[in-house]
């Protein structure tokens, strides 16, 4: 077994909000051509028929207001450009038209094609170039947050494609329950009680003991008592906290992107600066869905989930058999056992890869899981170095 895997004790996942791969990391193609980002020639037609090219003009805040539509029908338009034939091929040509629908402003609709140059998102870009960036990590459903995050917790969304309340159906258990029942420790760290978690109806309501706050995550890192598996949620709102105003750090439009960069840096530093934690931890930074923002890579078909969403739920007039993934999102795996500049290509990942990876690592064989989870790729094989790196950066926020 490679030494990185042999020493691995903790897996940490930080899931951010609503930004596509090209929007956040597309500019890295100019730095490393192996990264499947943007050439500058990618485009979408607007409603006047003009071609709108991608440009490095993304702003930290104020540009994607109103919040781009990322519900199932809108994402269907973004991917298939209004083609309702069967079978149909994803063209990724409907983003500008989709954003136009929200404000009926042709010029404003072009904003959906803007991306960040690497020097504006230094934390994410640095981590992508230093560690392992995934060319093909897709969100699990071409839809919004709740159902996508469900795939990270359960390996399925139980047939949900929207933000509606869903209840867990036996026999599938969350990754936290699986680990807990086997004697391992797992925790979801939400930012604070005012931000809380997105998984309320099943996990917070019934198992609040699974939760901790972000301050607790920092102290647990410092005290060397991090659980075997940790899932970290950013701050979802601007609100008054115990020690002043807390700024939303999830990067969900229209929250300030720099706040999210600072949060990612904080999570990374908490692990990186602990000599007893850094060699034994793998950190995955990933986004839950693309937020309605442009990406050039068509999502592939995937094994069916076993559930079906009916036309009433999809809003498109057609059912959805969970046989196609959602739009690509940024995903970076961080560990001192990963070679610098790793670009993961030729393999398809999605959020079900998270519980699959964690289950296989800690539990080995475990049958009661969705078909999607069982067939998904896992990612710990990227820890290949024989000698631990000592050149990983630290971030200083201020």
């Amino acid at each position: 077994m490679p030494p990185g895997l042999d020493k691995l004790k903790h897996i940490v996942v930080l899931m951010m909000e609503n930004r596509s791969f090209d929007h956040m990391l597309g500019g890295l193609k100019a730095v490393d051509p192996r990264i499947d980002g943007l050439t500058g020639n990618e485009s979408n037609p607007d409603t006047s028929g003009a071609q709108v090219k991608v440009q490095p003009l993304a702003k930290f805040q104020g540009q994607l207001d109103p919040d781009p539509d990322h519900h199932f029908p809108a994402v269907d338009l973004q991917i298939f450009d209004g083609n309702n034939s069967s079978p149909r091929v994803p063209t990724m040509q409907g983003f500008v038209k989709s954003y136009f629908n929200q404000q009926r402003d042709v010029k404003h609709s072009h904003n959906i094609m803007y991306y960040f140059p690497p020097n504006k998102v230094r934390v994410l870009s640095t981590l992508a170039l230093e560690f392992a960036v995934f060319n093909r990590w897709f969100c699990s459903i071409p839809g919004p947050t709740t159902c996508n995050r469900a795939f990270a917790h359960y390996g399925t969304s139980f047939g949900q494609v929207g933000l509606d309340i869903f209840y867990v159906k036996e026999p599938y258990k969350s990754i936290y329950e699986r680990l807990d029942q086997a004697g391992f420790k797992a925790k979801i760290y939400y930012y604070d009680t005012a931000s809380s978690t997105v998984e309320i109806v099943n996990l917070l309501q019934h198992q609040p003991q699974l939760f901790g706050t972000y301050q607790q995550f920092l102290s647990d890192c410092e005290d060397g008592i991090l659980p075997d598996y940790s899932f970290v949620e950013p701050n979802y709102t601007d609100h008054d906290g115990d020690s002043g105003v807390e700024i939303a750090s999830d990067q969900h439009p229209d929250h300030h992107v720099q706040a999210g960069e600072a949060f990612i840096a904080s999570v990374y530093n908490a692990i990186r600066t602990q000599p007893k934690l850094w060699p034994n931890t793998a950190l995955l930074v990933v986004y839950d869905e693309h937020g309605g923002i442009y990406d050039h890579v068509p999502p592939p078909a995937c094994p069916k989930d076993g559930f079906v969403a009916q036309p009433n739920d999809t809003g498109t007039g057609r059912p959805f058999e969970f046989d196609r993934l959602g739009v690509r999102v940024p995903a970076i795996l961080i560990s001192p056992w990963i070679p610098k500049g790793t670009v993961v290509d030729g393999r398809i990942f999605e959020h079900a890869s998270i519980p699959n990876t964690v289950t296989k690592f800690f539990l080995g064989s475990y049958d009661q899981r969705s078909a999607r989870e069982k067939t998904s790729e896992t990612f710990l094989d990227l820890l290949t170095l024989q000698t631990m790196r000592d050149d990983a950066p630290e971030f200083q926020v201020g």
Partner: protein
Amino acid sequence: MAIIKIKKPPDSAIDKARPISSLLRTQVEHMQEAEFRLPADKQTNIYINAIKTEAEAADYIRKVTERLHESHGVAPAGVARKKPAKISQIAASAAAAQTKQRSKKASRTASKKRS
């Protein structure tokens, strides 16, 4: 090892009066679904349709999250609850007696000095 400096966002980035997004609206609705299962005296009685801003949503979310924790007998995440010290009756009396003795001694000393 490189240290990379990152800028903080400006204070102007904060807007507690920002209208809530569909995600936050959903979070509030899910919170209500959960709080309706609490005993009536644990519920917030907040009318969620009136929640329009991030600050209002955060306040509601905090209240329900804390009540969910408390109803399960779990301290709200991250809050270190100090258990009241259990002092036996004997120890309490002994401490009180000791305090009284110290006061008397201080008085006697003060009176000797005066004379």
